[in-house]
């Protein structure tokens, strides 16, 4: 049996802002169906790394490769803008920390879920609507509220709406920037449960940024711990959390309040 090809592979990826902050020298491979969590304190470069990987900011140096659905090995940093956008529309999703940034607030929930479909050429209203209804149900939203504006939904519902919008095109890789931050604990738990079942059933590869060790423990197969822009420790989730090697990881793990 041959080793599976990584979906996304980064080597010595660096993005800095005037020689400071950002992320330095990050290398990893993400395999199909894998959930990789990036944890670290605020200011450790997690979000910068995620944005660089999702091509939302241009990397300074390093290489970034992606294996597309038709087995093309793409050099993402050299990819042209139209190809990048096509990739983002068809194979990727990006879930923002604040759902209002990821949603179009001026149009209904159904239109928000339907927009990615229309962007890839869906031109049948009935079908778009049926798919949107289906996805509302999948993320446990009341499908009869399909015509309401995002503002009419609660924070947790908006986050689920954003997740539905990102998954509707059947992406292979989803980036998530602290998807559960800013939600109350019970809503967080339900959302995490939902995410876990969705990633498993859809065989998604997910890159999650979080500062919440609990999120990492629950969702991630593998973990990368960042401090000061560098990856200080990486490995299987349980391994890293149960037997932290780096002093920073040890502090991080021990700083979780026992319930």
């Amino acid at each position: 049996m041959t080793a599976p090809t990584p979906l996304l592979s980064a080597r010595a990826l660096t993005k800095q802002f005037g020689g400071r902050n950002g992320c330095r020298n990050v290398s990893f491979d993400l395999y199909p169906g894998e959930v990789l969590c990036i944890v670290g304190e605020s200011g450790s470069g997690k979000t910068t790394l995620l944005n660089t990987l999702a091509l939302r900011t241009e990397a300074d140096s390093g290489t970034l490769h992606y294996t597309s659905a038709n087995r093309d090995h793409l050099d993402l940093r050299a990819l042209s803008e139209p190809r990048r956008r096509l990739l983002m529309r068809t194979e990727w999703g990006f879930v923002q920390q604040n759902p209002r940034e990821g949603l179009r607030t001026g149009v209904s929930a159904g239109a928000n879920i339907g927009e990615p479909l229309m962007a890839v050429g869906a031109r049948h209203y009935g079908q778009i609507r049926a798919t949107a209804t289906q996805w509302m149900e999948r993320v446990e939203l009341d499908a009869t509220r399909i015509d309401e504006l995002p503002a009419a939904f609660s924070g947790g519902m908006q986050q689920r709406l954003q997740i539905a919008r990102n998954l509707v095109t059947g992406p292979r890789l989803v980036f998530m920037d602290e998807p559960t931050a800013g939600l109350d604990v019970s809503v967080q738990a339900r959302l995490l449960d939902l995410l876990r079942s969705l990633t498993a059933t859809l065989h998604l590869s997910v890159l999650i940024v979080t500062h919440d060790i609990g999120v990492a423990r629950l969702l991630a197969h593998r973990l990368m711990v960042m401090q000061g822009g560098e990856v200080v420790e990486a490995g299987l989730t349980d391994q890293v959390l149960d037997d932290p090697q780096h002093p920073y990881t040890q502090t991080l793990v021990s700083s979780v309040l026992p319930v």
Partner: protein
Amino acid sequence: MNARDTAAAAPEYDSAAEGYNFAYLDEQTKRMIRRALLKAVAVPGYQVPFAAREMPLPFGWGTGGIQVTASIIGRDDTLKVIDQGSDETTNAVNIRRFFARTAGVKTTRRTVEASIVQTRHRIPETPLTDKQILVYQVPNPEPLFRLEPRVAESRKLHALADYGLISVKLYEDIVHHGSIATTYDYPVIVNNRYLASPSPIPKYDNPKMHMNAALQLFGAGRERRIHAIPPYTPVRSLDFDDHPFEVQSWDHACALCGSTNSFLDEMIVDDSGKRMFVCSDSDYCHERRTEQAGANEAGEQA
């Protein structure tokens, strides 16, 4: 009446515009606009930026259209100006007088006689020919404006032909009204490439833009953009497969000329709410009535 048709170039108007260049704008400005026009014609539907000048009328009254007309008009041209289909409304009367004075050109109300038709809100019912140019006054040339407020981003969307967003607008229409309720300024795809806003013409006129023999120029003065549809260019109105594009229809015929295939205006004629439907294209209606009168007379004589 203050805007008589000038069958020949009227010398008394020339004197009124003494000290002005032909057709008001200076030659350098006209060259600049013509360059923009050439580019617009070369890339159908693409919005070409141009340095719109201050014109002696407020933005929204046709500053874009008037600048385009001023830069393409010649001494041998015959100008017709319509506003909401009519030659008699304030905007039409004033712009017609403006060019009669500053360019001394012939003006007309008959669509067939005109070589340049400047229009606001309508395309004439009488089919245009390849000898004619239709100039539109455009308030907002950007169809994505309400959906994507960032100008740089919407230009990128145009460049990449990434037009999923405009379908969202149509989707929302169906959600709220049960059908695509956009009745004017209905978005079109020009030459199978660029998304364009056809200026606030009713969607009834959209099919007339498709493969039209006349050159169609769009000038937006405040937004400083020019776009164009060259003769015989395919223009497709956007729709959904299960909600196809449809034009308006009326249960009435024009109360004056009896036409059943023109765009009708609903007019309330008294305090008790009595209404009447008449052609919005005043020239079309007038021509038909003249024809009918002629036929009646011939009938009586026989």
